């Protein structure tokens, strides 16, 4: 089969790390030691990282924060150091998003790809899938999952359903853009983190309002615009067969009974799961 991107999608890790012909990309994995399951989570991610080549040159980083003791921290460092990860220590405040922001601010790479503690890569060429859509198609931000769910029923400040937003478990964008979006924000409360993901000034909304495109990328490599998210086969849809990065939320969906799956799918996508219920015009932001 023809691979038009052969030059930069070698499976050779050495090539992945040091090509100067392609934009520099940092891949960051956040590990929070305060999470009691941090070690299994770290090992799960590392195993999947090793099993599935990214298909695009990158430098892997691990963001360590919230470790209560030095022994655990050393163990975590050792786990990642032997796989060639750059270790970055961060304060455990400001929730995950603040850690991403601090990490991104200190980098000099052009693009960043972020995974949260619960992430697990499910397919090869995962970074290539992200980067091709960013570089070739000019999409500003891509993520492995997205949702229409809203917290409007809890906090009125959140937009009503359908509240389109890319989820922040695994996403990729230009570093500069990300830093710009988080510059004025403070993350002191959980609400701030929620707002940054799906609030009226979410990362997704900021990018859209700047006239840029956002998309969910499936295992097939396609970048789905918001209009087609409910048909992407990714987050909380069917058997999530088109998902290429799993997390604790997608796993919970996998393990749920059918009735619970239906409830979750309805909460996430509502009636937009049906082909005859497209998004209203004002939300049709795919193109």
């Amino acid at each position, binding site marked *: 089969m023809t691979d038009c991107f052969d030059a930069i999608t070698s499976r050779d890790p050495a090539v992945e790390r040091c090509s100067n012909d392609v934009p520099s990309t940092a891949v960051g994995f956040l590990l929070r030691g305060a999470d009691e399951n941090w070690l299994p989570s770290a090992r799960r991610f590392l195993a999947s990282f090793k099993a599935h080549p990214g298909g695009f040159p990158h430098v892997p980083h691990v963001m360590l924060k919230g470790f209560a003791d030095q022994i655990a921290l050393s163990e975590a460092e050792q786990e990642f150091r032997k796989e060639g990860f750059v270790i970055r220590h961060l304060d455990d405040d400001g929730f995950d998003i603040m850690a991403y922001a601090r990490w991104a601010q200190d980098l000099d790479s052009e693009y960043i790809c972020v995974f949260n503690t619960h992430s697990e890569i499910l397919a090869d060429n995962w970074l290539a899938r992200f980067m091709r859509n960013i570089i070739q198609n000019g999409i500003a931000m891509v993520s492995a999952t997205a949702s229409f769910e809203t917290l*409007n029923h809890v906090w*009125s400040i959140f937009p009503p359903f359908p509240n389109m937003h890319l989820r922040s478990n695994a996403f990729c964008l230009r570093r500069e853009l990300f830093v710009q979006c988080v510059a004025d924000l403070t993350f002191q409360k959980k609400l701030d983190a929620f707002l940054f993901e799906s609030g009226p000034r979410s990362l997704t909304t900021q990018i859209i309002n700047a006239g840029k495109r956002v998309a969910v990328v499936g*295992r097939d490599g*396609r970048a789905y615009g918001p209009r087609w998210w409910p048909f992407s086969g990714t987050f909380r849809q*069917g058997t999530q067969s088109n998902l290429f990065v799993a997390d604790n939320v997608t796993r919970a969906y996998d393990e749920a009974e059918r009735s619970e799956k239906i409830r979750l799918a309805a909460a996430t996508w509502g009636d937009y799961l049906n082909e005859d219920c*497209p998004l209203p015009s004002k939300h049709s932001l795919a193109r």
Partner: protein
Amino acid sequence: MPSETFRDLFEAHRGKASDKWDLYLKVYEEIFAPLRDKPMTLLEIGVQNGGSLDILADYFRNAKAIVGVDINPQCASLPFESERISVIIGDAKSGKTREGISSRAALFDVIIDDGSHVSNDIIATFFHLVPLLGDNGIYVVEDMHASYWKEYGGELFAPYSAAAFFKTLTDVLNHEHWSLNKPPADLLQPFANRVQAALPMDHLERIESITFLNSICIMRKTAGERTTLGARRITGRESNIAKIERFEAFSRKAELHSAEDYFRAWQPQPPLEALAAKARLVADLKQQMADHIEQVVGPTRERPATHQRTREQNNGWMQVRKQKRSLAEQLNHAQQQIGEQSRMLIEFRQEADQLRHHLMQMHQSSSWRLTYPLRLAKRVIRFSWHLQHAFFSNGSFLVSFGFRLLSQMLTEPDLAEATMHRVHTDADLRSEIMQTVGMTPAEYAALSALARHMEKGYRALRTTGRRLLLSRLLSGATRAYQGVRQRGVRFHLDEPQGIIVPTRRGVVFRGWAVDTNTKEAAEVRVFAGGQPVRVDRYKRGDVTAAFPDQVSKNAKAAFEAKVALRGRSTWVRVELASAPDRWVLVHRALLRLVGSIEATDLRSKRTGDSAEWFDVLQNHLAAQIDEMREHIDTMILRPAFLVIIDARKSGHNLDVTIGSLRAQIYRAAGVVVLGRDRPDDDNNRIQLAPAVSDETVQWIDRLDVCAPLFANLDYLLFIEPGDRIVPSALYSFASAINRDPTSELIYSDELFPTSSGAPLPFHKPAWSPDYLECFDYIGHSGVFSMARARRLSLPFTSVYDFTLRFTDSLGHDLVAHLDDLLFERAAPFARKMTGDDDVAAILGRLERTGRNGIVAPAPSGINCYHARVRWERAPEISVVIPTAGYTKLIAGRDIDLIVNITQQIVERSTYRTAEIVVVDNGDLNECQKNHLAKLGCRSVTFEEQAFNIAKKLNLGASVAKGELLLLMNDDMEIVQEDWIERLCDHMAKPDVGVVGCKLLYPDRSTQHVGVIHYHGNPDHVRRGYPADDAGYFNSTCGVRNYLAVTGACMLTRRALYQQLGGYALQLAVSYNDADFCLNVRAAGYRVVYTGDVALVHMESLSRVPSANLDEVRYYHERWTPKLPEDPFYNERFLTLAPPSFEPRTNDRLL
């Protein structure tokens, strides 16, 4: 003295019939001989045919009177030669009859009771007639064996049987030895009470002997006043061994006359009344046990009444559980929200304190005062936005509050108990809640209305973003309805609620209306935009159950009206008939279009019409074309497709096909027309339109996948001239390859034209190798890996042959199915002119896979065949049949099920099974046992009391010896001799773990042709169709892979059964077969249904499957996370209730 004995006379007797047991002839001779020549008198109770009186008259030649008594009036007309014989008609126990008897003779020397043989009659007759027995008279009771029979009022230990009476009489005979100060009458009085007769003690005490022989009892009456032992007489003088006290008084009475001894002597002997009471108690308990067993076992016999009751109870349970689960889900969710809110509240308060301090400082600054006008303007702009959100924020808090209240209710043990056991209807639930929490109806109504509106609003807010709270609050019945309701007409609208209903296409109005005065459904009419809308009526069990005496069970209480949206908004009126031709408005609603008109461009009515939906889906795909093109540009893998147009038989409309290939957004790397030289005649020569006949189309007359021409191609697709593929078809395949590059075969659904004009969609199952072996279900809708084809160097005779060869050893993980309609066929789904190619292809598969056999067409199938295997060594099969030993009334005949099925297996089957193992409950009757023994069946008994069919089957399987297990119900009938052979055909494939077959109802409609899952529950597909139904693309007549087949007849491997631990013991009644099949699949084996075998399952057609809720929960927890959807049945585009394979569009839920 006459020489003939009684026996001689009896045997020489001719004329009127008489019957005596052989023993009686001997006994009578012994006891009657001394009286034979005397002028005696004889009374016989029970004349019957009169033969006995003739014989007795012959025997007692000098008898003065021989009197017969019988209750049958016909006996009066019996002629007797001897004038000494006379017959009295009447009941021997009655006073009138006794007078008649006394008129014949004052006393009798012999009385023979050969009457009814009922214990009570014998005892009463004895009491009545013993005074007529003369001195030294003999009283004979014949046929005493009847006193051991229940139907004659006796039993072995029955306290009031005739045998018990005469045994007691022996105690009376020995009264002087009782050593008790107790009159003999005390012992006999209970008998007299029972038969309501006076106790003739004077005469009873004169009975001097009672002789029991087999079935006959003989009493003799003394000539004196009473029988006594008499004085002790001693003779001889030497007593060296045992000393005899000559002057010792033989009396122990003084020693035992104390009260203590009295009780010791009497109390352990239960008084007869007490015994009788206990007997009654035992009888009652037996009856209760029988009733209980009937309740438990009854449903399995499918008695309609019991079944109906069980079904209703199950429905009630299901509703309650459903409500409980739904409430629990909402509760959990609400609790999470409350928790989050509480935490946030604390944080907010802390933050507020800090901010308040900063605010005060800021307000004091001059810059703040100068910028006030700007802030004011901003506030005004945002005013309305804040107002809305504030309102709905409070609404969600109230919802949370409502859920918390419900939580408290549900955690009340009393309420939980009530909900679980007593609640059947909404009304019951309301009543229970009110009672438990001490609410008045008014309070409850207010709270529930608030909660309902809030919950609906909350849901709408989450799923559609629409705020329906206001409309919910404004909904409800009109004042006019209140008046109608008071007159006994009840109405309820289930959905939609509220007066403003946002919708995109239309709304279904559902509810019920009943008139308790007429006990029938109340008329309902619906108007949309002033125009009447059709209202469908149907029965609803929960409604009729809620009004048990007020509404007929057959009333079609429920109604349903589908109202389409007309324009942007449509007013709907629902009216109820309060009297003939009098209507009251009970509900009004405004349907409003959601979204913009533009958004409805792709909208279609989800009516189930496949043609419309095909257009919807195509439009949906078309709208994505730009994004797909973008995807193509960034694809990691770009598979090169070779499309081969097989024009060997016809080249008609070839340009249509090539045109559709040109329209692909993902272009094929090569297009080849196979068969350019055929057909030969000019008229049929393949013609291409100039626009499509360019150099990109290659022409070949022979396909060789290894040819250099195809060297750089990755996937191969066959298509026929005239067929069209949708523009995104090749893109979809390419996309699927990018999703899973290991796929070597990917196939999609397709659409066939029909004569009616409406296209027939073929929604295919997931990879089904056994289906493929009977019917080319992949055909021209799949792409094949060229690498594999080259590796196998596949020759090509037909596409079917190619597909079979390609998949000979293809792992299931290398096959993918796209459930998109990517192909439009030019020709309808119809029988081929000749199926030789197909037969040859299947024969080739058999040969390649080491099976020797033949291929036979499926009788009603379309291009469908069955591969029938000839075994070199037929596998040994153990048939395991659990049974309860029932006899069932079917089609007017009583069928002993286990006898019937075992006999049929032996007599109607050509396959010699190794053994038949019958698992019974230990209650088979002798006849059944003898039958099974005669057939050589092995029997094992299930000893446990609790019904558990899974355990029974596991028990049977544990003793089975065959390498294959055929698990069967006992209510089956064999209608096909080679049924076992045909089941075994599939066991020749090593990956097949379970084989099931077609089961028919007694009326020969289909009962089982495979099991699918929908909504997580197993159900039979295509139930109730004709026996020769071909099914959906040969689903019934052919062979198909399913998740499960029914356990009513299931062939499996014994080793596999044991490996998996057999049936799950947790599933005692339901779902155990489906669970086993899913376990088989999880172990890597396939489950196969074959239409080549049909059996009759004598299950009631009207039976509604019911299930234990605990078992349902177990099953759901175990399997629905892994199987949210059935891979072998398209839940989106085929009918679900019932699952009949009829094309229909359903809402997508996942």
